């Protein structure tokens, strides 16, 4: 085999891990017979920086964990075998991971250069749009989407086809479509990956939607924290206009569409559709009462259809392959596939796309490879600040909208953060509440003040000053906030507290009754000491201590100055002789 082409993965994860240096080095060192190009995210984030080789027989192989030292081998046609992650030909460690996935929304991610429209077109790109414009009327497009069973992938899970029907049926000479790319959940990066890896799939989905609902103008509202996604989207729009896939009289039909990118300015609540619309209109992003729903009165008071990035990314595939093919995946009322961002204390973090109905255990252990350092699993957090923590006994829960809601979490946009025994559940609850409390727009009193009070109670418990009544107060406040908040942010803000109370009440009790943090996280409840008999005087802890709180001479026992100690645990992690005691 001879390597003919090398593609370097250059989405945010890859770039953060050093992909640019890899690319630059290859550019100067590769022989001319090997073509060098860029691609984006294949989803194996843990192994970044990665590259793909294509040999003279057309066989693809992916190599990961690359360092500049590995590169020489690629030029000599001797790639580092140990770093082979996926191969189309021989056994490779990542093959099984990939085999468990069904890639529909991410069908092109990591396969094509996102900046090259020709590569998208070569993989059936804009074929669905052409088919729709030439062969289908708007109602049959909507019916097809309805029959596919596709539901909103931003988290709420409303039927996409039905949503389109409302916008289609609404009276009005001017209509808008919006793509919600304000992915704000901490720990979720599916939409960023889609926009960086395959922007045209999103644009094509939007164009099909615009035709179906009768819109001629649209906005993509993208987080400003995703500069690469914004840049690639803007280029993709220009290229598509150039080729006649966007703009006036697309494919010679009467259908025209203008798309614009609007950059967000940093407000989580703008993920809520009425707040997002207010933000596009140039105001503070505050949600408003629904009805009227945006389908009746949305942007500039015109009928507006709003979908999430991943929802749009599925559309062209559904049109090309048929509603039935899509609905063949999934369980119950949750059809098709869902992309998840797997992160936290899992060995092989990254993006995975699986059919609905896959279990949490399969995702975390079979695809994610299990827990880092083989520690025991404690919980997986689904749905970000609006979601909940799922304990081990529920790991066999099927991942679909209904089953996840039943266990007190939400599907959300697809963030999946794995936690082990070193994570304190009160700390996690207060982490999320701190987030929602900060991001509350302030319109509804209970969301504005109630979340603050809940956070204060959690902080009191973490400081070892909690009393049992605090648990009742948390539950009451949670109930009130849910009942009296206008939008999803407030209605779901108490979920992280409620779900940890439901499944990890013991930890609350340990903090309150025994003044003990079982995960050794809450700083006011832990302290560190050095066992002088076990200490060999290696000085490693003293060197690691960020506040110079450890004293002692080499080969002599060390001590911790408790007044200086900030309980960060660096000495505990560093000590090789188990001489640092944690209580």
């Amino acid at each position, binding site marked *: 085999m001879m390597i003919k082409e090398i593609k370097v993965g250059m989405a945010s994860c890859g770039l953060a891990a050093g992909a640019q240096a890899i690319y630059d080095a290859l550019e100067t060192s590769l022989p001319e017979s090997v073509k060098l190009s860029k691609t984006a995210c294949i989803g194996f984030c843990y192994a970044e920086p990665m590259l793909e080789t294509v040999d003279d027989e057309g066989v693809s192989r992916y190599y990961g964990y690359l360092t500049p030292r590995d590169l020489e081998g690629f030029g000599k046609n001797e790639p580092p075998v140990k770093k082979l992650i996926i191969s189309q030909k021989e056994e490779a460690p990542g093959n099984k991971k990939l085999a468990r996935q069904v890639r529909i929304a991410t069908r092109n991610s990591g396969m094509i250069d996102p900046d090259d429209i020709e590569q998208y077109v070569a993989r059936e790109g804009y074929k669905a749009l052409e088919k729709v414009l030439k062969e289908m009327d708007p109602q049959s497009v909507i019916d097809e989407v309805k029959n596919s069973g596709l539901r909103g992938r931003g988290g709420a899970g409303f039927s996409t086809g039905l949503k389109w029907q409302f916008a289609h049926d609404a009276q009005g000479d001017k209509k808008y479509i919006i793509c919600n790319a304000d992915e704000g959940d*901490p720990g*979720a*990066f599916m939409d960023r990956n889609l926009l960086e890896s395959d922007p045209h799939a999103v644009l094509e989905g939007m164009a099909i939607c615009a035709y179906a609902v009768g819109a001629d103008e649209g906005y993509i509202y993208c987080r400003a924290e995703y500069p690469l996604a914004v840049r690639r989207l803007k280029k993709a729009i220009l290229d598509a206009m150039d080729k006649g896939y966007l703009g006036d009289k697309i494919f010679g039909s009467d259908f025209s569409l203008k798309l614009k990118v609007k950059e967000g300015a940093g407000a989580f609540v703008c993920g809520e559709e009425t707040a997002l619309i207010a933000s596009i209109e140039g105001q503070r992003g505050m949600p408003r009462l629904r009805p009227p729903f945006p389908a009746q009165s949305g942007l500039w008071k015109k009928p507006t259809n709003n979908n999430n990035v991943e929802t749009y990314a599925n559309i062209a595939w559904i049109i090309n392959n048929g509603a039935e093919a899509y609905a063949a995946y999934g369980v119950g009322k949750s059809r098709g596939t869902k992309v998840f961002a797997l992160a936290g204390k899992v060995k092989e973090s990254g993006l995975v796309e699986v059919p609905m109905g896959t279990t949490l255990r399969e995702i975390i252990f079979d695809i994610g490879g299990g827990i880092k350092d083989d520690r025991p699993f404690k919980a997986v957090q689904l749905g970000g600040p609006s979601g909940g923590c799922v304990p081990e006994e529920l790991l066999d829960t099927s991942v679909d909208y209904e089953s996840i809601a039943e266990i007190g979490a939400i599907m959300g946009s697809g963030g999946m953060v794995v936690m082990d025994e070193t994570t304190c559940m009160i700390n996690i609850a207060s982490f999320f509440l701190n987030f929602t409390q900060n991001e509350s*727009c302030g319109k509804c009193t209970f969301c504005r003040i109630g979340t603050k009070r809940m956070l204060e109670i959690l902080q009191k418990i973490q400081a070892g000053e909690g009393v049992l009544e605090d648990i009742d107060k948390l539950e009451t406040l949670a109930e009130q906030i849910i009942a009296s908040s206008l939008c999803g942010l407030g209605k779901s803000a108490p979920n992280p507290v409620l779900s940890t109370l439901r499944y990890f009440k013991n930890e609350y009790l340990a903090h309150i009754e025994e003044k003990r943090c079982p995960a050794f996280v809450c700083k006011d409840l832990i302290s560190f000491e050095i066992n002088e008999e076990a200490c060999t005087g290696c000085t490693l802890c003293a060197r690691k201590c960020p506040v110079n709180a450890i004293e002692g001479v080499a080969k002599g026992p060390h001590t911790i100055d408790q007044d200086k100690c900030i309980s960060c645990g660096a000495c505990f992690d560093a000590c090789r002789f188990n001489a640092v005691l944690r209580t």
Partner: protein
Amino acid sequence: MNKKILNVINKYEGLKGSAIPILQEVQEIEGYISKDTIREITEHTGIPSAELYGIATFYSMFRLKPQGRHIIRVCKGTACHVSGADNLASMLRTLLELPAGENTTDDGRFTLLEVACLGCCSLAPVIMINEDTYGKLASDKLAKILDKYE
């Protein structure tokens, strides 16, 4: 008035919903949004100062004070949080000798920001200094990293 700012305002003349992009571009030019700038935008666009101030304080990307030469962003996403981002943040505050409530150093060298999620969760915990990303960090590595920025 700064000519560049005037150009920005002229570019959006007559366009609906332009308050946010005007503020974004002005901040790009000046580094932050000052009271004087808000007044000037009002004079030229007719958008009330209260509305502009309301927007500038609502969205987290707008800064009302001058920033340091180097911006440090500590990722506080969930994955980073469970991997020890809090320790990094407090260690940075100690190293930069930042008093509570302040986020820019006296000498104007660094501004420390906490951000929701940088989106590279597999490298947790992560900080960004300007455009450089540092992943899989431990707090004892920070001092050396800071030394690289003058």
